[in-house]
């Protein structure tokens, strides 16, 4: 399976690239936390005025937010970096 080996190689290169920028990792962690605070803060305001939102209880909506962030994380790890790199490659005309 040469395709799988290729994916594995790209994955290793990606991890090595990220590991080279440790401050960046901390900053991204901080930004993810900020995103979480934003989501929960907005919900906190809404749920001070109601017990259910369209039939959803607060704990259920929090679970939904968790799933959303989780799926977003997977997309951010697997799909988004390559997608953005592709745009860059096309814009700089480096594909050929």
């Amino acid at each position, binding site marked *: 399976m040469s395709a799988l080996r290729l994916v594995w190689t790209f994955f290793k290169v990606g991890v090595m690239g990220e590991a080279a920028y440790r401050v*960046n990792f901390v*900053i991204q962690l901080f930004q993810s936390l*900020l995103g979480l*605070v*934003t989501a929960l803060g907005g919900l906190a305001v809404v749920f001070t*005025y*109601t017990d259910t*939102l369209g039939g959803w209880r607060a704990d259920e909506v929090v679970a939904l937010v968790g799933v959303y962030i989780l799926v977003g994380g997977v997309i951010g790890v697997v799909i988004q970096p390559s997608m953005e790199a592709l745009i860059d490659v096309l814009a700089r005309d480096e594909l050929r």
Partner: protein
Amino acid sequence: MNGLAGVYRQQMKTSFAAMLQYRAALVIWLISQVLDPVIYLIVWTTVTAASGGEVGGYSRGDFAAYFLALMLVNNITYSWIMHEYEYRVREGTLSAALLRPVHPIHADIADNLSSKMISTPMMLVLAISLGFIFRPEIRLVPWALAAFVPAVALAFVLRFLIEWTLALAAFWTTRVSALNQTYYVALLFLSGQVAPLSLFPGFVQAIGLALPFRWMIAFPLDLLLGNLTVGETLVGFGAQMAWIGVGLVLVRVAWRAGVRQYSAVGA
């Protein structure tokens, strides 16, 4: 002064030409500006329906008026300068701007104004169209409407000065996205973009009074909706003036220190 007017005219011409080259980007940007208020409006409409037609003094129609007017005020006061400065410093395009005989902030103001001349009428049409779906309840207070014009203009100046100062952080760090995000989270909650500020707990409102965010969006917005007394309006203008004064000092100090830093790196 005549020279500066010429600079503005020319810069705006250039900005218009650049904008017309990227029409699709303008449409995508408008959608992104409308999406957030519409989501919060739908959430609060749902909450209102669940709690017997009123939440913290706001009816369904009040929320509709609030979030549709928010689109307009946010559009008028918005700037994108914080996203741009990192690129300018990193790629060195700022060097060319430094060679010009006028302060670079003028080019940015002209660029922003010309963009608003196109986006604000479009946003107005969008808000009115959405009004047919969400049916806002509007009470027009003539004096407040007249006071809204200078209030939103001052709000624009204030927001522009603060965001331009923060954008200069790019001189010291090339990782400004964390700073930008922190700013936008504070702005989101304390300027009334999630909910009208009166729905927040008391301590959040107290913090909001002491910070500039409220005066950038919530104050002109409440004025437009006729929610303020004359006394509250005067306090609002006073707070705007005071923060603009702070902003002017910050811009000068940060710019001088920043340019020194920039030339020290040798870009």
